[in-house]
């Protein structure tokens, strides 16, 4: 198994980064840091897919019309991840906007402090 893992190390690294990203989101109370964590998670998945698209000795999938016998990497994951990146930018944008608004309205971007303010409001 260790050998297999070593051979699949991009997958392994992607899995570990995914976990680290998830850990950042769950363990930190700072909202900005949570946003970074989500980004890390998403890029980890992207890394996983792009690595899966790689083919040993493959060239980037831009067809060389003069030279038909070139091996190319799989273009599909790249196309997917291009979409994925835009999605993650969008999510980041919205979460940043929310952080700005939370800061405007609560004066803090720490989840614990916000929770404290809210529970004080409820009483």
């Amino acid at each position, binding site marked *: 198994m260790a050998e297999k893992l070593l051979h699949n190390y991009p997958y392994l690294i992607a899995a570990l980064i995914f976990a680290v990203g998830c850990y950042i989101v769950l363990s930190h109370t700072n909202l900005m840091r949570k946003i970074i964590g989500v980004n890390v998670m998403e890029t980890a998945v992207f890394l996983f897919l792009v690595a899966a698209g790689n083919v040993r000795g493959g060239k980037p999938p831009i067809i060389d019309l003069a030279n038909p016998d070139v091996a190319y990497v799989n273009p599909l*994951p790249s196309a997917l991840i291009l979409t*994925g990146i835009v999605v993650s930018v969008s999510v980041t944008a919205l*979460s940043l906007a929310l952080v700005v608004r*939370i800061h405007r*309205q609560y004066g803090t971007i720490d989840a614990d402090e916000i929770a404290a303010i809210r529970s004080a409001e409820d009483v």
Partner: protein
Amino acid sequence: MFNNLPVLIVVMLLISAFLAPLFVRRFRRATQVVAGVVTWTAAGLSAWLLARVVQAGPIRFAVGGWPAPWGIEVTATPLSAFVVTVATVIVAIVMLGLPREQRDWPSNRAGWYITLLLLLTAAMAGMTFANDLFNLYVFFEVTALSSWGIVAAKTDRSAADASFKYLMLGAIGSSFVLFAIGITYVVTGYLNMSFASAFIAAAQLHPIIPWVIATFFLVGLALKAGLFPMHIWLPDAHSAAPTSASALLSGVVVKVYAVAMAKVFYGLFGGASLEAMGISEMVRLAAVLSILAGSLFALVQTDIKRLLAYSTVAQIGYVFLGFGLGGTVGVAAALYHILAHGLMKASLFLASGKVIELRGSRNIKGFAGAGRLLPLPMAIFTLAALSMVGLPLLAGFTTKWYLFNAGLEARLYWVPVVVILSSLLNAAYFLPIVWRIWFGQGEAEGAADRRVPGLIPLAVLLVAVGLVPNPLLNLLQQAAAWLIS
């Protein structure tokens, strides 16, 4: 042309959404009307599609003319056409109340809100029609982004907080789903569900692979749908949103995620192998926990919108339970509950929105004596609440009955016990409110304006669905049979 319909419904909604912010500043009323008309048109088209699909069999449409493993395939099956019809109809009905709700909003905010609602509808439709996993994911994200947006539509600060919480957990959920899609692609080489499932069935995969795929899908979608241990964002988000948004989020959106889960699970693995992997067991367990915990949490709420949100946690458990039980009857029960609960929850939110507006507070004490001020909305609230409790002849009972049958068919004898227990708990938190409405002592003033647009169609549909469930259930069993096969 007709085969384009699943895409055209989505694109039509999208185009109207793109146009809305451009025109809302000058022609606000017209924008609202056009949005409503477009949604009703989408509802009509999807109903037509449903009728055609039931008659002539599923439509498989290759977008852009590229056949399945290369291009994106969109399928209109009885299942997806039904779910889209339900979603669009409920959205259209809820949108009837927009002009009234947005009276005091600035024009541009109103426009953005309408845009997001249209985008949400389009994305739900697209998600349901998708047969391509990545296409599903992209629509998934549009749904998510637009629901995060509408949760924060109110300007008070709890809305921002709730939306952020929702966003974080939703983003984690999306990552899990994307990871699962990625693994599926890496293992099978296909994004199309039909092809991937054929590959999974044929290849000798190490058992951990499908298990991890299914678990990641389950975690991701359960996070989005607010199943019990992952429901923590739901009460905040559904209570902080404007009334129409709460009605839609609770009534429709969470269920579309459940349908997505069912589609992915049955589309990729099939019922037998889900059972063998223990995934069905996991879904059922989560559903039961959700049913019981949601009701118990709802029992101690004093804020009506939070109460209804927790009740959604419980009710989404029914849907998951139905899907987890499998078999035509179980899936049909889940689908029926999607419609029934959509109608019930939307009516409950709309009616209580009126009370909140009247009293200026979300405390359930505000319901005292509301029956005299708002007789019709409160009568519909009562109807929907009793339906939630599961009184015979109302829609909630039919769900229960079919879940019983499904549970007994699957030889899981605890299912009736759980469902009965849950309806008792429902009674425990809904009946005091009903009593307050009619017999409580409250302020007698107010209520110059008794109309709640959209409530009457919802109630009529709810009664009809409860009294004449038979044709619908026949249809749903067809849809379920298609999903399972």
